[in-house]
């Protein structure tokens, strides 16, 4: 039983991690806490759904495509909205994403009705047995996807010129600007990448999860806590925080009681940040 629980928690954590990493990347580079991240995941799920319905692209195989679409969408949103707010006061930066979230969720309801939908066919359906442990294949695929995305981000940030520049920004904006780094362009790229992560998360989730306008809200909230737990600005921290949350949720839900499981996550967050006010792996300004 404990094995089953731990596996479930790990898989869930990886999926949360997928949502969290994009959030963390966006925060690290431009200091925006993206409360609309859940809504973007939702949009990606719909994108994946329509692709599978009309074009017949399997959600799992379509992941890079959806990520690419979301990347483009991210650039647009950045140019139209986020970039303009970035120079504004702290509170406007905090609230603009709340507005975006309300807007997109209701736009989805307006355009696509509040009905629940589900991708009917996907290559990753079914269950595999690993000794005594049941593993849901779509969750496993999503978790592997999560680790691949984590690897890609790691590679991108450390090995590419753009990635290094993005890291430089998240360490010290003004110094980076003085070194001749084009902040605007990189911000847009980073925001696009953050949304691409949301896109990948949405596509992988769409392969097994139902879709409706409000679906992203809880994922967004949990991801936010995961990112804060791991420490704002650290993508590895976000993944670790998310896995920790997945495990706390599953084990806590079982041993303490399901009605308390979200309370446990939040309690863990509060305890950890009180002990370590910048999260597990965080650094930089508040």
């Amino acid at each position: 039983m404990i094995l089953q629980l731990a596996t479930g928690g790990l898989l869930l954590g990886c999926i949360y991690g997928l949502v969290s990493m994009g959030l963390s990347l966006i925060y690290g580079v431009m200091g925006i806490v993206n409360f609309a991240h859940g809504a973007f995941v939702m949009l990606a799920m719909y994108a994946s759904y329509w692709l599978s319905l009309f074009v017949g692209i399997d959600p799992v195989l379509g992941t890079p495509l959806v990520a690419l679409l979301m990347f483009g969408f991210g650039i647009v949103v950045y140019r139209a909205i986020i970039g303009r707010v970035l120079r504004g006061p702290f509170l406007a930066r905090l609230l603009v994403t709340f507005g975006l979230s309300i807007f997109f969720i209701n736009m989805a309801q307006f355009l696509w009705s509040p009905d629940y939908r589900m991708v009917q066919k996907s290559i990753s359906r079914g269950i595999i047995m690993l000794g005594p442990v049941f593993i849901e294949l779509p969750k496993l695929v999503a978790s592997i996807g999560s680790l691949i995305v984590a690897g890609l981000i790691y590679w991108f940030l450390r090995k590419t010129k753009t990635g290094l520049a993005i890291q430089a920004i998240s360490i010290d904006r003004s110094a980076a600007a003085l070194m001749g780094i084009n902040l605007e362009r990189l911000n847009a790229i980073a925001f696009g990448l953050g949304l691409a992560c949301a896109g990948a998360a949405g596509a992988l989730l769409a392969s097994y999860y139902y879709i409706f306008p409000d679906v992203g809200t809880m994922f967004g909230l949990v991801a936010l806590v995961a990112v804060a737990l791991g420490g704002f600005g650290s993508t590895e921290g976000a993944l670790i925080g998310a896995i920790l949350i997945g495990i706390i949720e599953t084990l806590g839900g079982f041993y303490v009681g399901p009605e308390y499981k979200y309370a446990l996550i939040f309690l863990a967050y509060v305890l950890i940040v009180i002990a370590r006010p910048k999260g597990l792996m965080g650094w930089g300004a508040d």
Partner: protein
Amino acid sequence: MRKIILALVLVCVLAPMVSTAAADNVIKIGAVYPLTGATATTGADCRTGVELAVDIINGVYDLDLPFARTAGIPSLGGAKIEVVFGDTRGDPTQGMAETERIITEDKVVAVVGGYQSGVVKTASMAAERLKVPYVLSDATSPALTERGFEWFFRVIPHDGIQAKNALEMVKDIEAKEKVDIKRVAVLWENTEWGANVALEIRKWAKEYGFNIVADIPYTYRATDVTSEVLKLKAANPEVIIHAAYVSDAILFTQTMKALKVQPKIMIGMAGHLDPSYLETVGKDGEYFFVRAVYGLDMASRKPVVAKINEIYKKKYGRDMSPNAARSFTAPFVVADAINRAKSTNPDDIRKALLETDMPGSSLISPYDGVRFDPVTHDNVLGKSLYLQVQNGQFRVVWPFDLAAVPYVYPFPAWK
């Protein structure tokens, strides 16, 4: 751009709050539902039931239903009924405000709807304060009628009766199959409604000699229910009774399948009835028993059910769902009261409601009729059905004398 914002601000602030004057010979009734927010899909479904009911009352249809063959309300010279919808957003304050708004601004003479018990609490409070009758046919918390409100009436049987029915059905199956069933698990979403269902199940389980082996509350917004399902599995229940909304119903069904939870009887409520539930889970929803106050194949005993469904299907392109059917009843009860009162004065309507005595034949619900308890205003003739999903259809299987097809027992292994 700034000017546009400024203009928008001004429009919103200065826009006069004019209510449209009521046309002659139109009787307005209000209907409040969660038309946006997390339960919007159900709200939209309920809305169709009310719309259709009013269509039938106003138009001329060849149906064995009251007001079908005549146009409008006969005693008021064929006055037409107009429904004013209000959006509660699933929030009690907004539910109250919307109810008050449609009562005071749109001058509705009666209110129906609500869906979520928590919202109905405040919405019915608003009607009580403003002295307008509220006829509820789609929320089932027992607490609602325990308040002794004067203006509040409920057609649908409350959770206590429905819980009792669930366990009675298990007893009946037990007797018929000559098996011994003891272990019952109750799984409930932790808000007003689910908590009440659980409370009633506990009460009646004791009464009927079942053991509650798992009693699991959870939040309906959960993104993952692995721990809940494993807990359920560890308890190894023979019967699972699940009080769920839609998203959690879907999630639990999928997870129970994945983790091979294998009870003998699977009973669902509310969420399992939603059309999008079956669409989403597909074959995995097979053989669930679902409590309902409507079943399409009641048509074998009530031909009118099939006819209504035909009209519904023409209008909305799908079969009438049990949720839509629940909401369908209330406008008839209101129209019946208005007709007898020969008045649109809310107080007269209330008095007429107290004297309501509609026969079962005038309803598409399985009730023996509508007659309100003089104190609680609950429908004393209420009755619920149990349906079972067979080949993607909800089939009436209990009570046995209303059954259209035999039930399938035990719950087959997951495929």
